[in-house]
């Protein structure tokens, strides 16, 4: 029962963090997230141009990394500095401590550097009797509290002002207790100023390194990095090898993007230094010769560069946009995401690369694949994909125990290491087929108390979640048995994709889609109901998902070639076609599917734009509250739904959250139920505020979550405009 113990521990840890750090983390990350949307919005079309440029500069730079290291080394040495390429943390620390030893250093003052956190430089210095002083106030708080950073940019972002005041008052015992942020800041500055001046070595990180000039760029707000450099003869800069850009001019898009992506238009200081710097060292009368040591850290990065899947991680500029836009991160913070140094979002890639799979494994589940971070990344890293890849590798490295018992239920292409629950969720299609064939008995059996207890105990399926209710008559059964209308000179031909939920559970939205499309002059066929691979992919079962993708492509390729469009009711399946298949299928196959796929309301929008007659659709001035699906918003197709509904006279209010919190199977997992509901709480507030507006949602799991949050089952937008509804008939 090892797996249950772990689940219980995870649940307890998350509960603890929700209670202790959740509110402060939420306040800070949601503020930064909102600020980011506003700031990148101000850039207009320039935003995408900057991102494209930044991306291509990084691709090139990593491609030519060995050359760049060589050029940079030559330049720094020509400028009078020294470069040391450290293979790993021990190597880097050995060099750093020896430099400190050479200058007889008793203390080192540091500006914020996550790379030195990765190396645990402070511990290495303390071990040889050298004091390491963090001068960034966030790092200082963390150092005093003896905690790990919880955020890439704001290491102490989980601590409230009151908590910091308590910490300072206990630790420093000042004459007057400190209370306000101003008092705390002033105290910290006055505490640090003499330490900065008295130190022997100033240590910084580097946000970027410029090969052609041998310069480094430091992006900061407090001014401590400047003081650390200016006040000490010996400057050690520690940076990952991936930070190198070829030329100074190529720094420009990054300077424009990094601040905004973090939620600030630009930082107070961007120092572009070519050390040893020309400024005389303070105190001036004691000033000696300046020296500069650049420690370039490999520590797994060259191997990441050779790893086709992890390579993209090296493009990361550590801006934290992926953390701030992550619904789970917003609610529970970085301390839940595990990892030895990096936490949340892209950290999965970093941890796997620099510390190994085990370090990334612990909380890899917390990425639900909602994809909200994808468009926020200034270098366009597909962060959910990296999480999926790592999940797949974790699956393959585990040793399973129960698997053989369930082979029949889990016809997947995975190796033995997969947990039973992952197999169950990943093979939901098989379960749905079986459940539907034996409904209502299957539903009755599944919902018996003892079944739920067993499911929770063995599988970790939280008993508080309603299970899907399988329909005996599937959507496909209905489609085949009905009398089909004759559409003369059809406007378009479409094959409607019957996702598993529509086919076996939420049959009504399928019917509504068929009636709507036919009323607009579309000849509708039904695709073979089979999984797009979304469920296995979300469990990290890449082989299984790839196999599903191939089957689907074989099903649809000819039909598409004949000019038929593919229309989706479920946004997460559309996202497979238009996004994830890029990773799973050959390029041409992916393009065929992606270019001809539409969200059903996006399709209706297109039909209306091209002159289709909406006369038969249900038009009304009813007030609606619409929650679009996270992946739908990433693809930008949610706007079509709102446009169509408004066109038909509906009064539409929309929710404004990154994710509902359910995210497919995530909210069903017993250890994540509390977090899922906590994330959902934000949406609940907005739904309650919407009063008696009819609730509408596009995604299946959003629908389940909303039902659990407010006790009302939303309908799909296609059901809102269903011609049948207009006739005043119930759609049962």
């Amino acid at each position, binding site marked *: 029962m090892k797996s249950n113990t772990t689940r219980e521990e995870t649940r307890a840890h998350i509960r603890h963090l929700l209670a202790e750090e959740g509110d402060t983390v939420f306040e800070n990350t949601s503020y930064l997230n909102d600020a980011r949307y506003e700031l990148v919005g101000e850039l207009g079309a320039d935003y995408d141009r900057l991102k494209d440029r930044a991306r291509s500069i990084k691709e090139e730079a990593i491609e030519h990394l060995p050359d760049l290291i060589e050029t940079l080394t030559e330049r720094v040495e020509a400028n009078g500095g020294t470069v040391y390429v450290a293979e790993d943390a021990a190597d880097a620390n050995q060099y750093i401590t020896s430099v400190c030893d050479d200058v007889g250093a008793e203390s080192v003052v540091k500006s914020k550097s996550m790379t030195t956190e990765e190396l645990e430089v402070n511990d290495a210095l303390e071990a040889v009797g050298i004091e390491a002083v963090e001068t960034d106030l*966030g790092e200082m708080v963390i150092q005093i509290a003896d905690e790990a950073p919880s955020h890439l940019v704001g290491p102490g972002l989980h601590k409230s002002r009151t908590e910091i005041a308590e910490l300072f008052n206990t630790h420093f015992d000042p004459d007057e207790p400190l209370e306000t942020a101003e008092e705390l800041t002033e105290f910290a500055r006055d505490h640090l100023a003499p330490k900065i001046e008295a130190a022997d070595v100033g240590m910084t990180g580097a946000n970027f390194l410029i090969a052609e000039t041998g310069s480094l760029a430091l992006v900061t707000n407090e001014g401590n990095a400047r003081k650390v450099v200016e006040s000490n003869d010996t400057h050690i800069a520690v940076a990952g090898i991936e930070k190198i850009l070829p030329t100074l001019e190529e720094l420009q898009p990054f300077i424009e993007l990094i601040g905004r992506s973090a939620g600030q238009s630009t930082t107070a200081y961007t*120092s572009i230094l070519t050390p040893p710097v020309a400024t005389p060292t303070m105190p001036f009368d004691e000033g000696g010769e300046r020296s500069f040591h650049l420690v370039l850290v490999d520590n797994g990065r060259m191997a990441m560069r050779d790893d086709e899947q992890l390579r993209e991680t090296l493009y990361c500029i550590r801006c934290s946009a992926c953390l701030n836009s992550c619904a789970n991160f917003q609610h529970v913070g970085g301390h839940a995401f595990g990892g030895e140094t990096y936490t949340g979002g892209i950290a999965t890639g970093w941890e796997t690369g620099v510390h190994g799979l085990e370090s990334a494994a612990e909380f890899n589940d917390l990425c639900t694949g909602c994809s909200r971070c994808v468009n926020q990344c200034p270098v366009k890293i597909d962060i959910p994909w990296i999480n999926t890849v790592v999940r797949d590798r974790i699956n393959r490295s585990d040793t399973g125990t129960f698997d053989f018992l369930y082979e029949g239920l889990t016809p997947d292409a995975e190796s033995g290491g997969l947990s039973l629950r992952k197999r169950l969720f990943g093979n939901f299609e098989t379960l749905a087929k079986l459940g539907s064939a034996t409904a209502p008995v299957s539903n009755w059996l599944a919902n018996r108390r003892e079944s739920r207890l067993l499911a929770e105990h063995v599988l970790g399926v939280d008993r508080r979640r309603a299970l899907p209710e399988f329909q005996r008559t599937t959507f496909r059964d209905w489609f085949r048995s009905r009398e089909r209308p004759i559409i003369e000179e059809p406007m378009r031909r479409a094959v409607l994709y019957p996702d598993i939920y529509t086919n076996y559970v939420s049959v009504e939205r399928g019917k509504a889609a068929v009636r709507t499309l036919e009323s607009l002059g579309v000849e509708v066929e039904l695709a073979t109901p089979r999984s797009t691979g979304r469920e296995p992919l979300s469990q990290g079962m890449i082989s299984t998902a790839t196999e599903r993708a191939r089957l689907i492509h074989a099903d649809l390729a000819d039909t598409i070639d004949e000019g038929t469009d593919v229309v989706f009711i479920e946004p997460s399946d559309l996202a497979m076609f238009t996004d994830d298949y890029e990773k799973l299928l050959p390029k041409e196959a992916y393009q065929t599917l992606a270019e001809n796929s539409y969200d059903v309301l996006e399709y209706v929008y297109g039909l209306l734009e091209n002159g289709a007659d909406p006369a038969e659709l249900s038009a009304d001035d009813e007030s609606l509250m619409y929650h679009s699906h996270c992946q739908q918003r990433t693809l930008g197709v949610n706007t079509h739904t709102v446009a169509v509904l408004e066109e038909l006279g509906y009064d539409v209010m929309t929710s404004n959250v990154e994710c509902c919190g359910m995210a497919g199977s995530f909210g069903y997992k017993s250890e994540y139920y509390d977090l899922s509901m906590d994330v959902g709480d934000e949406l609940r507030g907005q739904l309650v505020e919407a009063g008696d507006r009819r609730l509408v949602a596009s995604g299946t799991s959003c629908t389940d979550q909303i039902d659990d949050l407010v006790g009302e089952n939303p309908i799909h937008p296609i059901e809102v405009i269903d011609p049948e509804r207009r006739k005043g008939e119930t759609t049962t």
Partner: protein
Amino acid sequence: MPTTNDHAIDELDHARDVQAIQRFREAAANAHVETTYVPVERATEAIADAIEGDAVGSTLPFETVTLPEKVRTDPTDDDLRTAQTGVTAAAFAIASYGTVAIPMTEHKEGPVSLFPPTQVAVVLARDVHPDMATAFEVLARLFDDGTKDVIFVTGPSSTGDMGSLVRGVHGPEAVSVIIVDTTGEGI
């Protein structure tokens, strides 16, 4: 003698400069930076007006603008620790961000612009560039010509690490920029 066409181009350039300066002043205000626009003959006076208390400074590299006499150049450590204001030149400004670029040389522009609580930067109107892309072209040329260290300053030093936003951390809590028009055309 300029032809009519040259004159029109001059006017166009002038209009563009005026727009850049206005944009710079707006962006600077958003970044909590005070700005003053003066003709060259009033520059020293405007710098003096922006100074709070004792002032230290680095000699300005401009032919036409000099520091007020009360500004102490080549300051000692103690001067830096006790001064209320530090005055330096900016190599250029970036209109879209309200940023000034302070070169750091052996003339102590680094500590002068960092230690005193009020920072005053002097920039020539013709060095106000519209955007970051233009600024980086200029920066690259400066580096080609031997500049090594430049700080982009956008507003006072600040932190959010103590639970809410505080201005004035390890660096200045107030920043003032004097924009000097050397063309005599004004805006």
